[in-house]
């Protein structure tokens, strides 16, 4: 039985997307990758440090917006275990896991200050993504790797 206080915290949404199982502390970075608030007109709720079956997690609820596959997979860079629930008329109409993409563009900034992608050129950053124990991004331009604290390098 959910008491009133808990219900207020996790209010159900009628239509939109619920991103669950985000690593605790990464919800705001998820919003950053999705370009929220600029890209969403609807209400966005963020739940930080929510207790779950596998420890604490973050949850993001975006009303009246259904995320597409490309957006979802970009989230995988910082929240590889996240699940995406598409909500229609208060019901979960689709439930999917994020997949780590093999290539990302315009999401992360290269750590190499001398990389051409960090200069005044008309290009966006591009990275090949590999999973070798941990997640490793390799800049398509200069070849420099980012393997730690990817969230710190989000554009």
């Amino acid at each position: 039985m959910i008491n009133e206080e808990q219900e207020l915290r996790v209010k159900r949404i009628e239509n939109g997307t619920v991103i669950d199982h985000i690593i605790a502390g990464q919800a705001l970075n998820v919003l950053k990758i999705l370009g929220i608030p600029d890209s969403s007109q609807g209400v966005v709720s963020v739940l930080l440090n929510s207790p779950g079956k596998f420890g604490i997690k973050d949850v993001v609820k975006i009303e009246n917006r259904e995320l597409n596959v490309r957006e979802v997979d970009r989230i995988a860079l910082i929240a590889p275990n996240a699940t995406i629930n598409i909500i229609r008329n208060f019901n979960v109409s689709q439930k999917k896991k994020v997949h780590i993409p093999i290539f990302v563009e315009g999401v992360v900034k290269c750590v190499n200050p001398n990389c051409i992608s960090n200069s005044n050129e008309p290009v966006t950053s591009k990275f090949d993504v590999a999973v070798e124990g941990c997640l490793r991004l390799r800049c398509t331009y200069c070849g420099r790797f980012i393997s730690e604290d990817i969230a710190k390098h989000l554009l």
Partner: protein
Amino acid sequence: MKFKGHHIISMTSFSRDMIDSILETAERMEPIALGKQRSDLLSGKVLAVLFFEPSTRTRMSFETAMYRLGGNVLNLGSIDASSIAKGETLADTIRVVDGYADAIVLRHPKEGAARLASEFSTVPILNAGDGAGHHPTQTLLDLYTIKRESHLEGVKIALAGDLKYGRTVHSLCYALSLYGADITLISPMELRMPEEIIKDLEKRGAKVTETDSIEHAINEVDVLYMTRIQKERFLDPTEYEKVANKLKITPELLANVKTELKILHPLPRVNEIHTGVDEMPHACYFRQAFYGVPVRMALLALVLGAME
């Protein structure tokens, strides 16, 4: 093997077959590079040479390569007198120059510049060095030198000097791993080759040994590849002197090496190879500088589709 229209950006995109094909073509180019034969293979073709950083050997050998094959060279000239000084982006410069030339040679201080140029160019880009990034034509001429002066398959090679920052040694090692090389790395602790690269080389089939003593390593090898240690890498100048003195090749040091040992150096040298070594049969660094010409001739002929 078709190279027509290909960009030459980094060695990582080359298979062993591709390298072999370039080196074989270079061998055919040698009499022309030496001026013993005339060629008009690239007659009517124009090569644009864009050097945003100073260079002697690379720029001149590309220009010679083009002239020896009957082609023409368009030089960017001084940066100060160009649109770049007015703040033009590299992307725009490339889009303009590719309307003037059939291929573009580019040296740029930023890593990834050649890759970016290839995204905007309709003609082949040949990377002549991008910051601390890649310098594939140097690697190809190093491989050609090893092939001509010694052998590539299973070569026992020692690389000495700055193995941490030296871009030429990194891409040379990667390429050598394709030939199952036995690689000895000689460097002071502070300039060791990054662990990540060593692991990668071993994964690719190379045998890698590390040491900081040049005396022990050089008696067993077929090739010694020397590099310059840059003074600016050291905060303390006395530390630099100490390290630089430990990695110095002198005629005395070569007393017990194999007769067929060949010494390479990408040049310019400072004092890591004593001038007394220059006249010894081991020295081949000046021939190595010449080999840059047939290798670049081969690349130009291949990417411009004059040869297959």
